């Protein structure tokens, strides 16, 4: 085993040019995929944050009195779809409205009494689709004391659907980029091996077994993949550091979020992927060269 690793290193040294190009290609392919992953992870996070955990307002009927509250809360909890709830009395609501609309509150001053209903501000548990939250709203509305539920019917559906489309596109593009990286890398490794066809042929003629010939190539492929992946990530990380510090300095007013680097999990996935790339390229090439 050590023999093969040693030989692989010797090969890398003696075929410096071929190896360099292979490693550069792998690292650039990895760069494309990981830049996109970085963009996608951050965009998802930002968009997700806009959709703050599904807050909704439950408006209660006019006849509601405070002693009915515990009963109502129990019923809502019974649905098992609500995380938090806050009671907002009609007086609190009016106060808040007056504060929010300070500039045009003149019109509120003309009000006789309080036209607003009592309400519960609730936080709905995680949901994935617009249909789901519609169902939750329907369930809540079915409770006696509830008059209406408002959860941004208009824009939420639109937003969620576009977000889902974005996600689908994102996954599709990630897969596409990965496939392309796979092809390009495999082809580069193949090309690099192609110019070593003679070497392989002579080794076979001299009586070397397939394992003896192939093993160093595989070790080499794995090493190339690993090195390519790591250097691709290093390039990305350096760029990330520069860009993110640049952004926070110059674009502070534009940015309402930090750009975060890839998660550890993704990093390991990428490194694993690139090692696989190296191996796969090697596999394809050997399959072609060695009959």
């Amino acid at each position, binding site marked *: 085993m050590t*023999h093969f690793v040693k030989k692989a290193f010797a090969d890398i040294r003696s075929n410096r040019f071929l190896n360099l190009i292979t490693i550069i290609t792998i690292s650039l392919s990895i760069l494309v995929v990981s830049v996109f992953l970085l963009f996608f992870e951050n965009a998802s996070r930002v968009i997700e944050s806009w959709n703050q955990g599904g807050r909704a307002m439950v408006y209660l009927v006019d006849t509601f009195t405070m002693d009915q509250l515990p009963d109502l809360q129990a019923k809502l909890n019974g649905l098992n779809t609500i995380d938090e709830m806050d009671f907002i009395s009609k007086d609190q609501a009016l106060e808040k409205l007056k504060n929010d609309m300070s500039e045009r509150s003149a019109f509120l001053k003309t009000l006789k009494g309080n036209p607003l209903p009592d309400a519960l501000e609730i936080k709905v548990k995680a949901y994935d689709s617009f249909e789901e939250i519609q169902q939750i709203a329907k369930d809540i509305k079915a409770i006696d004391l509830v008059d209406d539920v408002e959860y941004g019917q208009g824009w939420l559906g639109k937003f969620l659907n576009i977000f889902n489309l974005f996600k689908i596109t994102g996954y599709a593009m990630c897969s596409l980029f990965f496939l392309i990286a796979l092809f390009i890398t495999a082809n580069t490794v193949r090309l690099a091996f192609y110019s070593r066809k*003679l*070497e392989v042929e*002579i080794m076979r003629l*001299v009586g070397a*077994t397939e394992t003896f010939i192939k093993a160093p190539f595989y070790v080499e492929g794995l090493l190339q993949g690993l090195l390519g992946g790591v250097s691709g990530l290093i390039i990305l990380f350096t760029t990330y550091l520069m860009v993110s510090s640049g952004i926070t300095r110059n674009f502070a007013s534009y940015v309402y979020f930090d750009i975060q680097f890839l998660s550890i999990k993704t990093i390991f996935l990428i490194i694993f992927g690139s090692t696989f790339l190296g191996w796969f390229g090697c596999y394809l090439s050997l399959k072609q060269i060695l009959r």
Partner: protein
Amino acid sequence: MEKLHALALDAGRCRHVYADRVMEYVMDENKNSIIRLFDVTKRYNGKLALKDISLDIEQGEFIFISGPSGAGKSTLLKVLYLAEKVSEGQILIDGMNLARISSSRLPALRRRFGMVFQDFKLIPNRTVYENVALVLEAAGEKPSFIRKKVMHVLRTTGMDKKYKAFPPTLSGGEQQKVAVARAVVGEPSIILADEPTGSLDTKSAQTILDFLMEYHKKGATVLIASHNLHLLDSAVRGRNIEICDGKINRTATML
């Protein structure tokens, strides 16, 4: 025997399924034969390079294959070495039928041969030492043994001072010496040498020839293909097979 032979030839021609078995039976009759060819024909894109070659070579024999350029000398050695497949006919090496050798057993078979290729076939980006050591590494020998053995063979062929050089930086004759060193380093029982002294001056040629003869004396079967009949002057007891246009023209015993 005669009859069986004819039968075998027949079998070879019609590619009968039992042909291989018959070959092995025939083989049994002549325990001393290490290489047997039955009606071997080799075509390249329909053009004949070897035609109906039948040959029986005994263990330890010395064979000199002569013939003009393009006669088929290299092709004959290549089919023995399984570097090329025959188009028709059968070859038995030490009782094994080459047509029935699985690809996993091919490397082991090749290690029993030592082949000097006419175009040397040295790996250009490996040093002389690495090129020669490759054979022993492939055979799984110990590093210490490899070092000693390789340097010994290089010394005998006069290439020990250039062991760190890369083949393209060697002169033609030097490359040939390395090719010979690589062929014999594994102590093969059969040595196939294709024009092993073609790029050498008379003195170096004699050294290399003597070197190969040493292996012959130790019991190796040696086949040398060359158009240079002067080599025969210094050859030992053996057979001279002259081929021309892919056919055996004449066989002579040298005494």
